[in-house]
């Protein structure tokens, strides 16, 4: 199965609504998708897990996916992390 990974530096804190948007998007992919911030890695499809990361502005966050649509999943989630953390909420 293809695996894919990409990192982004957050421009804002990862609040509830961006965490929700991330988990909703992740849930639409077949691939297993994980988000890593600092020493913690969580299932990107779990909104509570993503919120529990407590990822903050300036932190480097990595999205990793493994599965048939891994590349698309990583691209979609990186885009959400880029957009949503700028808005806040």
């Amino acid at each position, binding site marked *: 199965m293809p695996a894919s990974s990409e990192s982004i530096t957050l421009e804002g804190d990862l609040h*509830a*609504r961006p*965490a*929700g*948007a991330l*988990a*909703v*998007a*992740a*849930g*639409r992919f077949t691939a297993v998708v994980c988000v890593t911030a600092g020493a913690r890695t969580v299932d990107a*499809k*779990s*909104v*509570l*897990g993503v*919120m*529990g990361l*407590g990822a903050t502005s300036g932190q480097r966050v990595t999205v990793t996916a493994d599965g048939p649509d891994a590349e698309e999943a990583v691209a979609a989630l990186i885009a959400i992390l880029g957009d949503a953390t700028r808005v806040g909420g």
Partner: protein
Amino acid sequence: MSQLAPQVGIVLVSHSARLAEGAADLASQVGGGTVTVVAAGGTDDGGLGTSAAKVASALRRADEGAGVLVLPDLGSAVLTVRALLEDLRDASVALVDAPFVEGAVAATVTAAAGADLKSVARAAEEAWHARKF
């Protein structure tokens, strides 16, 4: 996944109308606003307690055809929901034992991604294990 496909609906049963409405608002917004999250809180005369009539009405409003997940806030709300579900005998309605706020948010987000009733219920149950920090 098309937004036009029916999604699992969520009914939040609380002893407090304001608690149910606030939790529904929060879950709905975190889920991106596509899922039908209906509050069924308080008694028929606006007091603290639960109402079978309010829950029955909420179940109808939340039903898009993909099933409805019901979350109670406290154990005694379970009695009202169970009595109602025994009368309805509807396999497309599931009562789940989960933390109220976290379960509502997790279930709504999972429903928004197009998951089926069983997966949405599991997401709510997994909220027992989610730490805030």
